[in-house]
């Protein structure tokens, strides 16, 4: 015998920002019917389809891979597709745009700062000698892979940036996600651009803005552990500073 899943209703408070319509953000409340299998993203889609078509948010894959639907859900940076409405019943559930980024419209943030910083970490492999495709695969051992693999799982969802108070206080800080990605390339046996990237790590915008809060790693939906990437590089940066003190170490 088939049964219809039980439908409940949750109050969802969304921080709206509609330039051209209202000059400041405001909170709007929606009553959203949901079943136990519905994500917050599906709740937002219900609002957009049935209640208010002007609600604006980013989404794509619905399965925590694309990294588009990051937002503050009850004050915590989370992926809307990776969070269930049932965990917040009866509400009210508060949904806001990601912290520390300018709001473009409703739940859509302006990530220009992140995008502008991205090429600075050289997020590509730079082999010591140019390789031709005809030379075949560039093989790695499982151990070599394990050095960077977890850091390659980043989906650029920006949750760690919304979690990082130091990024909130100082936008010049390179921040958790990009440092994890930088570390991913620096730890890759096929790459030879580590020294150039270390200049950024050692700089005032580099790892030293971090105070090891550790919240970035807590909110990461992919267990990338950006806090570990940042702090490993603090150790590396401090060691390189010590080496410069030695005779002939400059």
């Amino acid at each position: 015998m088939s049964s219809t899943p039980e439908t409940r209703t949750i109050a969802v408070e969304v921080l709206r920002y509609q330039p051209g319509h209202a000059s400041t953000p405001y909170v709007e409340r929606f009553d959203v019917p949901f079943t136990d299998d519905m994500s917050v993203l599906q709740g937002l889609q219900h609002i957009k389809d049935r209640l208010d078509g002007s609600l604006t948010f980013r989404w794509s894959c619905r399965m925590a891979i694309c990294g588009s639907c990051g937002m503050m859900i009850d004050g915590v940076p989370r992926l809307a597709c990776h969070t269930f409405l049932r965990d917040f019943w009866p509400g009210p559930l508060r949904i806001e745009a990601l912290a520390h980024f300018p709001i473009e419209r409703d739940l859509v943030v302006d990530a220009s700062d992140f995008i502008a910083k991205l090429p600075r970490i050289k997020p590509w492999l730079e082999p010591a000698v140019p390789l031709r495709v005809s030379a075949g695969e560039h093989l790695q051992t499982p151990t070599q892979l394990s050095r960077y693999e977890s850091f390659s799982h980043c989906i650029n969802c920006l949750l760690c940036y919304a979690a990082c108070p130091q990024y909130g206080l100082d936008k010049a800080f390179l921040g958790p996600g990009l440092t994890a990605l930088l570390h991913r390339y620096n730890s890759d046996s096929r790459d030879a651009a580590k020294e150039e990237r270390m200049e950024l790590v050692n700089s005032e915008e580099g790892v030293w803005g971090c105070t090891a809060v550790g919240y970035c790693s807590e909110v990461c939906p992919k267990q990338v552990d950006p806090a570990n990437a940042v702090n490993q590089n603090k150790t590396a940066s401090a060691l390189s500073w010590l080496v410069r003190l030695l005779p002939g170490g400059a």
Partner: protein
Amino acid sequence: MDGWWRRDRFFLKYMARELTAFFVAAYALVLLAGVIRLSQGREAFDGWLEGLRSGWSVGLHLVLLAVFLFHAYSWFSIMPKTMPPLVVSGRRVPAWAITTAGLACAGVASIALFLLFTGRPR
């Protein structure tokens, strides 16, 4: 960003950890006073010792003791995130094991210090 640290329990715990710094520095200043008094001779040092026996001082040190214990706990709790990954026979040592090992080291070092301090004068 005003009051950002009140936004989440995680941040409150972080702030508690950061504020232990005032107590660590305060204890260093107590010891510094003792060393200065020691360098000034017996009478000066006995005065410092007398001060340590006051209720205020014992109360302060009870607070310091609690804060130092929290400092040790928080220090070794964040260590799995701050140190490079530790790999033993091909497997990454889990965070809880690093924290436990750190606290165990603190226990051993503290027992050694206790024995050193309470050992009979040579």
